[in-house]
C-alpha cells in the first residue's frame, strides 16, 4: 500500500482524537462517580434507575407517613392510658359506695371525685396532637367531647365516626385515629348493653348521692363493660403501633437493598473506573508520542 504523509497525519490525528475522547469519558466517570450520566450510556440501566429512584422516594414517604401515624398513635395511647386509669378509679369508687355503711360525708367526697374524673375524661377525649383533635373522627378542628348543657347525658359527641387512614407501605393503609364515640361508647354501638361512659358516671354519682347502694352495685356492670371496651381499644392501638414498627423495619430493609441496587446500577465502580482511567491515559500518551515521532520523518530530511 502506498502511504502518504497526509494518511499518516490523519491516522495519527484520528487516533489521538478517539483516545482523547475515551480518556475524557473515563475522567468523567471517575470525577462524577456515575456510570450512567445520560440515558444513552445504558438505556436499560436508566429505566431501572428511574424505577428504583421512584420506589426509594416512595418508601421514604411511606416511612414519613408511618412516623406520623406512630406519633399520633402514641398520643392516643397516652390518652387511653389515662382513660383506663380514670375508669378503674370509678370502679373502685363504685365498689366502695356499694357498701351501704359508707357515711354521708364520705359519699360527698366520692361524688366530688367522680365529678373531677368526668372532667379529666372529657379532657382526655379532647386530647390534641398538634392542632388536631385525635378522637373526633375526621372533624379534627373542634373538640369532640362537649358538655351537652343537660344533666343526662352530661356530654355529647361532636365528632364523626370516620376512620382516617394513610398509606404506610405499597397497597397497605394504616388507620391513624380512634374515634371518640367508640372509646366513650357514645354511639351505643361499642357497648350496646350500657350507656356511654359519661352517663354511667353521672348515674353513679346521682345514685351515690341518693345513697342507693343497690343501684350502685347494679351500676358496676356498666362500668365494667365500658372499662373492658376501653381496654380492648387500647390494646388495638398498641397492636397497630407494633404492626407499623414491623412495616417500617421491613421498608427500611428494602430501602437499603434498593439503594445498593441503585448504586450498582447508576454508580461507577471506582476501582475499575480509576484503573480504566490509568489505562486510557497510557494509551493516549502512547498515541501522542508515536504521532510526534512519526510525523517528523520524511526522505527530505536525508537529502543533501
Amino acid at each position, binding site marked *: *500500500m*502506498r*502511504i*502518504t*504523509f*497526509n*494518511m499518516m497525519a*490523519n*491516522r495519527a490525528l*484520528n487516533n489521538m482524537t478517539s483516545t482523547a475522547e475515551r480518556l475524557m469519558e473515563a475522567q468523567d466517570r471517575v470525577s462524577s462517580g456515575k456510570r*450512567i450520566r*445520560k*440515558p*444513552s*450510556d445504558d*438505556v*436499560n440501566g*436508566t*429505566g431501572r*434507575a*428511574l*424505577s428504583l*429512584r*421512584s420506589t426509594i*422516594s*416512595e418508601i*421514604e*414517604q*411511606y416511612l*414519613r*407517613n408511618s412516623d*406520623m*401515624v406512630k406519633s399520633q398513635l402514641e398520643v392516643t395511647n397516652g390518652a387511653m392510658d389515662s382513660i383506663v386509669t380514670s375508669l378503674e378509679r370509678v370502679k373502685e369508687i363504685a365498689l366502695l359506695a356499694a357498701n351501704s355503711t359508707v357515711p354521708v360525708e364520705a359519699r360527698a367526697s366520692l361524688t366530688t371525685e367522680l365529678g373531677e374524673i368526668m372532667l379529666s375524661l372529657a379532657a382526655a377525649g379532647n386530647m390534641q396532637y*398538634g*392542632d*388536631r*383533635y385525635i378522637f*373526633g*373522627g*375526621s*372533624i*379534627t*378542628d373542634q373538640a369532640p367531647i362537649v358538655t351537652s348543657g343537660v344533666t343526662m347525658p352530661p356530654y355529647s359527641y361532636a365528632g*364523626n365516626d*370516620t376512620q*382516617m*387512614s*394513610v*398509606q404506610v407501605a405499597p397497597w397497605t393503609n394504616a388507620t*391513624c*385515629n380512634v374515634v371518640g364515640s367508640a372509646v366513650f361508647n357514645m354511639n351505643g354501638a361499642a357497648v350496646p348493653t350500657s350507656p356511654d361512659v359519661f352517663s354511667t358516671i353521672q348515674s353513679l354519682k346521682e345514685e351515690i348521692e341518693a345513697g342507693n347502694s343497690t343501684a350502685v352495685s347494679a351500676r358496676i356492670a356498666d362500668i365494667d363493660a365500658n372499662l373492658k371496651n376501653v381496654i380492648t381499644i387500647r390494646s388495638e392501638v398498641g397492636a397497630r403501633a407494633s404492626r407499623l414498627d414491623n412495616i417500617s423495619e421491613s421498608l427500611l430493609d428494602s430501602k437499603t437493598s434498593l439503594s445498593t441496587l441503585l448504586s450498582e446500577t*447508576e454508580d461507577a465502580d471506582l476501582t475499575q473506573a480509576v484503573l480504566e482511567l490509568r489505562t486510557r491515559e497510557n494509551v493516549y500518551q502512547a498515541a501522542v508520542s508515536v504521532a510526534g515521532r512519526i510525523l517528523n520523518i*520524511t*526522505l*527530505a530530511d536525508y*537529502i543533501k
Partner: protein
Amino acid sequence: VSSFFGINVALSALKASQYAMDVTGHNIANANTEGYRRQEAVFTANSPDAGTLGTGGTVARLGTGVTVSEIRRTQTGFLDSQVRIENQLCGMWTAKNEALQQVESLLSEPGDNGISAALDRFWNSWQNLATSPESAASRTDVVSSATSLSDSIRNLYENLRSLQTDLDRNVADSASEINALVQEIASINNQTVVGRSGDYQPNDLIDKRDLLVEQLSRLLRIEVHGSGGSNMIISAGGSVLVQGNYSATMDVALGSNGRTKLVWGDDGTDVAVTGGEVKGFMDTRDSLAEGYVQSLDRITQAIVSRVNAIHATGFDKNGNPGGDFFTAGSGAGNISVDAAVLASPSLVAASSVAGDSGNNIIANAIADIRDELLVDSQTIRESYAGLVAKIGSDARESSVHNEAHEYSLNNRKTQRDSVAGVSIDEEMTNMIRFQQAYNAAARIFTVMDEMLDTIINSV
C-alpha cells in the same frame, strides 16, 4: 541524419525532465491542499525520424527523444463515490447525534433534577397532605411541588420546541449552502468545457469541483452520473441539480406541519430529501423531537385531567367544593397550577366531606394516581420512563451509527489518499530521479558538443 540531431534529443530530455520536475514541485506545493489529486508527468518517446539507416530489408530508425505528453491526474472515481455515500450517511447521523445529545442533556435523567424526581415529589406531597390534612404547611408543600413539576415539564417542552426551531434554521441554512455549491459546480463545469476545447487539461479545476461535490454530498444525498468531466449530471431525489453548466436552485417553504422544508426554485415542488445532513435535521425535527413532544404532552394531559377530576370531587379547607387544581385542559406547553390555588393553598381539596378538616380521602386518592394505568395501560411514571428510554436508545443508535460511518468514511478517505494523495517520500525520490535524468541529458549535451568540436576544429 543531421549532425545536430543528438543535440535535439538531449534538448528534449532536458525539457522533459524540467517539466517533470515542475510537476513534482506542484505536487509538493499542494501536498496539503484539500481535494488535491497527485499529478504525474507522463513521458512518451517521440516518433522516430523518417530517415533510413542500414541496408536490405532492415530499416533502423533513430528515436527522436522524449516529450511529456500528458500531465495525468490520478483517477479516484470509484473511491470518490464511496466517500460520497459515506459522507451523506455521516452527515445524517452526525446531525441526529448532535441534536439528540442536546435532548439528553435537557432531560437530566437519571438524577434528582429531572421530571421523574419532580413527579415523585408531587405524589409524595399529596401523601404528606394525607397525613396532616389540617396543616397549612402540607398544602403549601403540595402547591410548590406541583409548581416545580409544571416548571420542569414546561421547561423540557420549551427546549424541545426551540430545538425544532433551531433545526428549521439549519435546514434553511443548508438550502443556501446547497445553492452556492451547486452554482459553483456548474460554473466550473462550464470552465472545463472551454478548457478542454483549448487543449488544456483542467486538472486542478476538476480537483476543486470534486471537492465541492463532496461537500455537497455531506448536506444531501446526491447521485453523480456521467464520466465526471464536463458532462457531469448531479441529481438529488430524482431531480437534476446540476447538468453541465445548468444548476437548479432550492427555496425554503413552510410545510403543512409549520416546519421549514426544501422546494425546487423553478416549480415549487418538494425536494425529496433522502440523506445527508438535511435529512438528519428533518428526521430529528419531525419524527424524533416531535414524537418526544407528543409523548410528553400526552403524559401531562393525563396528569392534569386525572388530578383535576379527583380534585373536583373534594372539598377545600373552607368547606367549598374543589375547583381545578391544574389550569384546566393544559398540556406540556402550558401546564401550571390553577391561579386561584396558587394564590391560596387553602383551596387544595383534601377532604371528601365538606367541612371535615381531618378528612384525607381526596389527598389519598390523588396520591394513588401514581399507580393508576393512565397512559397506554401504563402508569405516569412508566410512561415517562418509556419516553426517557426512547430518547436514550435513539441517542445511542445515532451515536453508534455516527461512529461507524465516521470510521468508514475515514477509511475510504485513507484509501483514496493512498491512491491519490501526495507522498513526500515519493516526490523526493522523483525529484532525485528527474535531477539525475536532467544531469545525464546535460552530459549528453556536453559530449555532443565535444564531438562537434572534434570535427570542426580538427578539420
